[in-house]
């Protein structure tokens, strides 16, 4: 009885695997040029821009499929170190990019993102300068110190002489942004691109907005295809830069 059951199950299993193998070869013979797939891992703050860039890239390069995953730069770097498949890595953190220099040997800066003080467009608390953050009645938040937007925020705040403490050090810029949009805080230190993306926010720049910027770098992995190199060139070239600048990013330093 048991032997019979095993025999039947094995037969079914063999048939199924046989069928799927046949199906694979069938598709292969139908599409002579197989799709090249490139896997892109990109920082969360690049979500809208890189989605748009990848769509434009696929239109310009038929036969190439781009798969993107967005997450925090440090998380992505950790995944890459642990062997996650990747062709292109776009990082908001230079230390994250540095930590994967084995897997991603060369990288180039492709954009910068300024941190700004964002507040509701109606400006109920009458925020005029960055020093207004020192006001005890003002509730403001920023990213955690070790996250790229937090590091940039710390630098900008120090230069402008803001000594007051934020009410929270959020783990990523999206948490900060969401709390501002929910009306729970009076001001928040987010990226200029976040303000661009939200019409009900206004912003105020720090006095030294050059250092108060996060540098984004991009690189290909060691065994990546020429399609991956093309993608990087696309991002660095006019098409990619147009998308980034329109979203509020700054061009890389030349």
């Amino acid at each position: 009885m048991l032997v019979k059951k095993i025999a039947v199950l094995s037969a079914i299993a063999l048939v199924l695997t046989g069928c799927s193998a046949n199906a694979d070869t069938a598709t292969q013979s139908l599409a002579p040029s197989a799709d090249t797939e490139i896997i892109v891992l990109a920082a969360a703050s690049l979500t809208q821009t890189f989605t748009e860039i990848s769509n434009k890239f696929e239109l310009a390069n038929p036969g190439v499929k781009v798969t993107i995953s967005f997450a925090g730069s440090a998380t992505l770097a950790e995944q890459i170190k642990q062997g996650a498949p990747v062709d292109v890595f776009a990082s908001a953190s230079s230390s994250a990019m540095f930590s994967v220099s084995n897997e991603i040997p060369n990288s180039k800066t492709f954009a910068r993102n300024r941190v700004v003080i964002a507040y509701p467009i109606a400006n109920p608390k009458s925020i005029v300068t960055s020093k207004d953050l020192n006001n005890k009645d003002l509730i403001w938040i920023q990213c955690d110190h070790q996250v790229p937007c937090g590091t940039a925020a710390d630098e900008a705040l120090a230069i402008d002489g803001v000594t007051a403490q934020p009410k929270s050090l959020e783990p990523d810029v999206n948490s900060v942004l969401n709390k501002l949009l929910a009306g729970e805080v009076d001001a928040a230190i987010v990226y200029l691109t976040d303000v661009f993306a939200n019409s009900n926010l206004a912003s105020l720049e720090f006095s030294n907005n050059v250092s108060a910027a996060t540098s984004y770098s991009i690189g290909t992995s060691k065994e990546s295809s020429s399609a991956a190199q093309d993608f990087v060139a696309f991002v660095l070239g006019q098409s990619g830069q147009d998308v980034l600048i329109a979203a509020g990013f700054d061009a890389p330093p030349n």
Partner: protein
Amino acid sequence: MRRQTKNRQRNAKLNPGLSLLALTGFLVLALPVLALLTRVPWGSFLEIAISESVLLALEVSVATSIISAVISVFLGVPLAWYLARGPQARTRWIRPIVIAPLVMPPTVSGIALLTLMGRNGMFGKYIYESTGYSMPFTTTAVIVSGIFVGMPFLVLVLESAFRQTPIEVEEAAATLGAPPAKVFWRISLPLAKSGLIAGAVLAWARALGEFGATLMFAGSLPGVTRTMPMAVYSAMESDQGSAFVVSAILLAVAILVVFFLRSNLIKTFSR
């Protein structure tokens, strides 16, 4: 007779197939924890454990989780009692609402608390406009989050314990002249003692481990609202040694809790 039954229960023999499944199940749960333990920098454990960020997180976590648990007991015991002995027509719909936080994603719990008590919240708006007080970003918010996620555990376990007391015992006491309060304090609650202990400890452990709701509602500021799970998350970005040390501490707490609870849980759930 009793001893024989106990021993028989302890010698369950599974066939090879089930044994393999059981072993796999065990490994799925045990191996990640083991892997975590191998990454802990045991050499610098003590040094990291007494560093400022860890001590601050420990302070916030221990203080808020204990207060959450105590308030959960104060509010949860009467609630569990009502669910166990109250009219079914009402308890039938009260119970799912009470249990809901158990299955709600923590982030959603946080959003729910924010939309109630935030500056623009259903209640929070009026409180803010009249007193200027806003609950988000305060240590109180951490405590409230702990109650929201922890109390349902207590109510669940304690209601079950209350139900196990046959109602005839309580009725007998009442016919002998005991007022309802006396019946509760002298009979119902003592008989449900193991359930109360198990429920309180679970509520405390749940509050201690809470992350998503607290982050959403209270934010994360060292010494004020940054609990140990949040400290782990923050440390993973830069100081991974610290993240693993705090994780190991939380793991040790979890194991101690389960160890302490096992007899209470067995008593509560197997009668």
